[in-house]
């Protein structure tokens, strides 16, 4: 094998190595912890894995593993309820994000060419300040007697006192994730061939029909990326519900956090993490498969 081929072999293996070290290995560790049992120890679970060649030690380790944490997950409806609540909030937030983000992306793609970089910069600008500071800013806006209620008061409207409620969480999430919805949709809309819109108009389609039959179907890949980029992290979101949500705002990310740090039940927290991962990854993998199968006729 010559040197160039060897180099290219190494280059193609690099991403796999990266995935192995930073994705697969931690997952194995988390899966292992989820099969352990909680203990008063440092770290707070057992059995511990030790690097040894003694088969008896391996046997003891294997005997120590079990599905107790998963049974606990099923037994306590807290987890079910927080999973469902996460699902509901993630779905609602993603739906709002689509309804808000698509028109923004469309307006940007239709703006004059020289304005587009400016609009793009405005969408990306919030990333230049810390995420936490921006969420704290929302506390100031939403808290009782905060900016929002003061503004409503000016018009003689009653205060909403939104802070620490599920609507506040939705507002915060939509605010924080909007760029992740807008950018992928904008990217596909911006690249579309303007002649296609003219062809639609030429063949008798008005604005609405053109949107329904041409713009929307062609932007589907961007829409799908936007939905993925938002739905998945929102499902596990912890910071926003913790800072803006009330004590009754259950979300899986928050439950996981309190198992881990509040109850120091690492095996249970890990089991929650594994179930959450499977719940997200399996449907997505299936969607991708079927999407590819449907799509390959066109490429």
């Amino acid at each position, binding site marked *: 094998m010559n040197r160039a081929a060897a180099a290219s072999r190494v280059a193609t293996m690099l991403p796999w190595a990266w995935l192995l070290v930073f994705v697969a290995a931690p997952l194995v560790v988390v899966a292992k912890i989820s099969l352990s049992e909680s203990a008063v120890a440092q770290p707070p679970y057992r059995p511990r894995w030790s690097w040894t060649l003694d088969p008896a030690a391996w046997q003891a380790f294997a005997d120590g593993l079990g599905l107790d944490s998963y049974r606990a997950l099923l037994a306590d409806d807290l987890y079910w309820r927080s999973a469902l609540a996460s699902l509901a909030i993630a779905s609602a937030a993603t739906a709002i994000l689509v309804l808000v983000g698509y028109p923004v992306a469309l307006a940007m793609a239709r703006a004059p060419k020289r304005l587009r970089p400016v609009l793009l910069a405005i969408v990306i600008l919030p990333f230049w300040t810390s995420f936490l500071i921006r969420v704290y800013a929302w506390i100031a806006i939403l808290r009782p007697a905060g900016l929002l209620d003061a503004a409503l008061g000016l018009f003689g409207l009653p205060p909403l006192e939104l802070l620490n409620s599920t609507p506040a969480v939705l507002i915060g999430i939509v605010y924080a994730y909007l760029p992740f919805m807008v950018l992928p949709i904008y990217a596909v809309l911006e690249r579309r*061939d303007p*002649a*296609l819109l*003219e*062809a*639609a*108009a*030429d*063949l*008798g*389609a*008005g604005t609405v*029909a053109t949107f329904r*039959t*041409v713009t929307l*179907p*062609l932007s589907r890949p961007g829409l799908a990326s936007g939905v993925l980029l938002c739905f998945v992290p929102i499902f596990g979101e912890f910071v926003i519900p913790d800072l803006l949500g009330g004590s009754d705002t259950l979300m899986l990310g928050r439950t996981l956090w309190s198992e881990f740090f509040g109850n120091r039940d690492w095996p249970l927290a890990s089991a929650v993490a594994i179930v959450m991962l499977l719940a997200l990854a399996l449907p997505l993998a299936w969607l991708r498969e079927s999407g590819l199968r449907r799509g390959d*006729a*066109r*490429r």
Partner: protein
Amino acid sequence: MPARADFASDARVPLVAIEGVTKRFGSALALDDVSLEIGAGEFFCLVGPSGCGKSTLLRTLAGFEQPDEGRTLLDGRDIAGDPPERRPVNIMFQSYALFPHMSAAKNVAYGLARAGLPRAEIAARLRELFALVRLEGFEDRYPAQLSGGQRQRVALARALARRPRLLLLDEPLGALDRRLREATQIELKGIQSRLGTTFVMVTHDQGEAMALADRVAVLDRGRVLEVGPPSALYRRCRTRAVAEFLGDVNVLSGVVVARAGGRAQVRLGESGALVEAADPDGAGETGSNVEVAVRPEGLVPGDALGATVEVATDLGPNALVIARTAGGATLRALLPAPGAAGPPPPGTPVGFAVAPGAAWIVR
């Protein structure tokens, strides 16, 4: 078939009338006071160098551009306010602009579905259209699964589907390779005469315009230089620019020595030979300096013009001889096939005469 050149003298209204249309993009003048009339059933070609405003004129007719000045009439009615979707006009785009997410059938049916035609009728029309463009069996393919020539046919069928009064074609054959283009030209002409639809086609290829058009308009820098049947323009255009755009041409200068009934006797400046040149609109008064145009095929062996061969190329059916006169002028002559001996070598002295009726005066 009646000569279409003289339809304007008919009492009937032309299908399309473009009256003094001017279009600016910023400070650039894309169309400069363009006036044209196109008759129903005509195959009309717009030719001219790249950037002369051909596409802009088509887009004005389709409704994508609004003229800054002037009017566009369809059947005598000003269509300035009509959006593209409400004009009985369809356009076939230079890039075809097929919807990539729809099958060929869905593409062709698009305009029919928008018109709200019942399914059965759409299906029947699809069969007709796919037969017309000879694409039966390709209905379910997506554009990415079709060859360039097949995509071109889908685009044509889609543009014809709504049975437009006027079909606009922007360099429809430009993306095809030469052999396919020549075959498709014949088909396009056949489809046009079978349907009787008025075609306005843009091309930058004057040969294509010659092959297809009933009449041709030559554009340059947003202005219409000349309009007429291609055979007439090719042999009797008014200006040197049009003569040069429509093909190879020899332009010789001389002095008019006599005139009679649309013909002039011109004494060529260099050789002093007398040449009879057509002068349909009396450009050359007796005694004036004029330019005489002769196509390469209008030069025959003779002794009016002496020259020496620079390059001679055997084209098979004939030979193209490029020769230089003593005065330094270049002559291009298309002579009969040279025979087995091959074309004359460079440096050979040759003499040319102008075939009867082959020369005309240009401005």
